[in-house]
């Protein structure tokens, strides 16, 4: 029997989180290389449609782990249900997307089984018979190949964008879906979650912007934001910022791009003084062209930039504003 990779997909209110396809694609690639097989599981209540959607991909089987106690996500409920399921099915490797929800319950789940997970991986490597997981360290300045020691099941999560969701292979026929009734004691769920909500209506929709000028810590002071604003205006683009800038209150939260802000994919993303730490990059990896200006030649932003300028943004940006105005007149 080949080893089994179990993909734990994610859903909310019965709707599959698209990032699950990336994990399926990653699992399929690993399975092909190692000669293993892929199965998928989904936890929740009233998730038959999402499970059926998952079964359209090339996986051996889909398990819908259901219980009324799983209707709303709680770490207690999801960890308990998946612990039973994993103890029962004994997968070799459990893969999940590195979402906020997974970050909330996966370390608990792994710990409850005496295991430690490798989180936020960006890829994998086959090393003989061993499987190594690659992850970023020190805010993306280094990468590390990480191995598992001890007994399976092994747990790893993949960063958004680590694999392409549209590369998840479809099956020739739908995979069988098995519904598993999880024994979750509702009284043992200690936290009480309330409805999701958004803060006051967002004024800017960065997801629709074709040109984004984004500032990071390199802008140094609040009064310098205006320089970036002038550049954005001259280009007819929107101004955005990395998390620390919005945390400092220099720009409102709706201008934040990153894993916790908005995910953008403009034609042009101009990064000014943004180092490119992982969290800042997740939200803009899909940009068509990235131009980065940073004084630090080692800044991780240059790993993903199409054009890079190592230099002082306070010299480069005024010159650029002038040149753009000239070009437009």
């Amino acid at each position, binding site marked *: 029997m080949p080893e089994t990779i179990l993909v734990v997909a994610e859903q909310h209110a019965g709707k599959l989180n698209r990032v699950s396809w990336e994990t399926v694609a990653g699992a399929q690639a690993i399975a092909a290389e190692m000669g293993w097989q892929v199965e998928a599981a989904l936890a929740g209540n009233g998730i038959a449609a999402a499970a059926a959607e998952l079964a359209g991909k090339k996986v051996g089987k889909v398990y819908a782990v259901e219980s009324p106690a799983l209707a709303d996500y709680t*770490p*207690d409920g999801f960890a308990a249900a998946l612990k039973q399921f994993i103890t029962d099915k004994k997968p070799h490797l459990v893969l999940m997307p590195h979402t*906020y929800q997974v*970050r909330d319950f996966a370390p608990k789940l792994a*710990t*409850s089984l005496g*295991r*430690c*997970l490798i*989180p*936020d991986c960006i890829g994998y490597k086959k090393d003989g018979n061993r499987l190594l997981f690659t*992850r*970023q*360290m*020190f805010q*993306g*300045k*280094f*990468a*590390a*190949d*990480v*191995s*598992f*020691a001890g007994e399976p099941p092994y747990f790893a999560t993949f960063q958004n964008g680590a694999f392409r969701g549209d590369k998840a292979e479809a099956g020739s026929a739908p995979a069988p879906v098995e519904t598993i009734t999880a024994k979750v004691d509702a009284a043992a769920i*200690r*936290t*009480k979650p*309330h409805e*999701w*909500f958004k803060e006051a209506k967002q004024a800017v929709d960065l997801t629709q912007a074709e040109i984004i000028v984004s500032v990071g*810590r390199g802008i140094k002071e609040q009064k310098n934001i205006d320089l970036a604003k002038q550049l954005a205006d001259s*280009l007819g683009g929107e101004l955005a910022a990395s*998390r620390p800038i*919005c*945390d400092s209150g220099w720009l409102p939260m709706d201008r934040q791009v990153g*894993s*916790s802000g908005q995910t953008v994919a403009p*034609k*042009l993303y101009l990064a000014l003084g943004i*180092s490119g*730490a992982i969290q800042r990059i997740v939200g803009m990896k899909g940009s*068509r062209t990235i*131009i980065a200006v940073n004084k*630090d030649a080692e800044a*991780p932003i*240059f*790993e*993903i*930039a*199409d*054009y890079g*300028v*190592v230099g002082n943004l306070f010299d480069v940006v*005024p*010159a*650029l504003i002038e*040149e*753009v105005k000239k*070009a437009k007149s």
Partner: protein
Amino acid sequence: MKILVCLKQVPQKDAPLKLNEAGAWIREDVSYEVNEPDAYALEEALRQKEKHGGEVVVITAGPARAQQVLREALAKGADRAIHLEDAAFVSLDAINIARAFAAAIKDETFDLIFTGLQSDDYGYAQTGVILAELLGWPHATIIMHIEKQDSGIRVKRELEAGYFQYVDIPLPAVLTIQSGINKLRYATLIGIKQAKNKPLRKIGLSEVQSAIGGNQIKIEKLYVPQKSKKTEMIEGAPAEIAKKIVDHLRNDVRVL
């Protein structure tokens, strides 16, 4: 409320990091600072104490240099500190660090434990959640607001794509704190003076060794990542750079 805050000392954000000669780890001769989300976790604990009374205790694990983050926390208003002091703590995996913390506080009675949501060096984002499971406590992650209620607390969790959610959670509990939950304070001169007389308990590796197992995840190799994209570097004086960028904007990116 009695609150424990877990702090980690990490290389400064702007510190130029180099691999050491063995190529196995970074060169340690860099400047360090407290992990940013942990600083927010400490600030939140101090604010909760100011509102509701109680005690703020800080804990870290690492070599002698890590004591600096405890000293700074004491100067900002923490009441006492615990230092798991040994260079070996740096190479423990997340579950073992959490086991060491759990062992170090086994005789304490905290209402809340705060950690930052993740560290700027390893970025595992799991020590707090693991600690909760080891202690048998409930937890909530990526917290942006905390409100004490008649029984327990109500916290605001940050979710993805601009969503938030309130969660009611009984005490004791572990919370992982998001950067930006509050505004950080600076230590005052008086605070720095007073910190010198505040208790700092040192715990050696041998005292928690029995709680720790072998690492289950092992860093085989650390390296400078290979570029996945070819970056064209633009050089010259600012005016030249600006001209070249505008050329690209017009001819290649086609946004002008």
